[in-house]
């Protein structure tokens, strides 16, 4: 019972330190072009790596995942808002599961 709380506090401490140390310790502007460029590309690389292929198993069926993924790509390519892309992507998967699976 109390062990569960120890688990929760331990993981919270580890996760917080990972987030806090760079933000508090790095104060100066980074001058290196390499480091600046590296950091410029990090979010795109991370989010892309997290999205694919994980998105294929985001729903219970690969077909509804693929349909939602395709819809999200089309909408995002046409610069629709975050909520539109996420919402219609879910709705597409829902329709596919409702009528085709």
């Amino acid at each position, binding site marked *: 019972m109390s062990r569960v709380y120890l688990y929760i506090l331990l993981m919270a401490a580890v996760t917080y330190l990972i*987030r806090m140390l760079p933000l508090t310790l790095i104060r100066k502007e980074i001058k290196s072009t390499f480091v600046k460029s590296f950091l410029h590309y990090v979010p*795109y*690389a991370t989010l892309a790596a997290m999205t694919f292929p994980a998105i294929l198993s985001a*729903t219970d069926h690969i077909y509804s995942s693929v349909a939602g993924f395709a819809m999200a790509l089309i909408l995002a390519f046409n610069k*629709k808002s975050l909520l539109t892309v*996420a919402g219609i992507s*879910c709705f597409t998967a829902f329709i596919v599961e409702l009528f085709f699976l």
Partner: protein
Amino acid sequence: MKKGTFRDFLLGCQSAIPICLGYIAVSFAFGIESSKIGMTPFQAAMTSLLNVTSAGQFSALEVIARNGSFVELAILQFIINLRYMLMSTALSQKLGADVNTLHRMGISYGVTDEIFAVSIFKKGPLYPLFSYGLIITSVFGWVLGTILGSVAGQILPQIFISSLGLAIYGMFIAIIIPETRVSKAIAAVVISSMAMSCVFTYAPYLKMISAGFRIIIVTVVVAAVAAIVAPVREEKA
């Protein structure tokens, strides 16, 4: 020191609405899973409030369920959440040099994939009050979804839970894809990351690497290569 105004706070809250909705969907699933291993709604909510990390929390459930060692849990969290270190480093450059340690410690609490993405892509300077609005609204959704999932998860039809699983990815796609039309380098980064992530997910031996480590390796390799091949010259705002 400029920490922003109440307007920035409200703007932060508004920018977090899609994150909040996406989080309700994802943490709902977390709530259901946590109740399956016998965690109470309070314990599940506390986990979400103190950690705010989807992959980290889901992976922790497995360790908690089998009474795994504390060392194992700590290492697992460190590896899976190491990407936040890259994000915090990037954020440290976006924040004004005059933002003090206390505000930096506050903002650190909410460095997640989604909050980071909205923060780093925000036009103009990033004020602490904007970040707080963003964080409070997002974490509200994260904790609310956890409680709902933990308490009432079993009564919602599976088809809803299934399709809601796409919400978070839809959001990622909405963030990265528009930029690929503007920059060939970013398009190349996105495509190579997805391809490399695929190889690490399915190839023999490589697939034994955990999801957290996979993301770290792909990010470091792809972003480093991109930085060498296509260095960013102009001053970023």
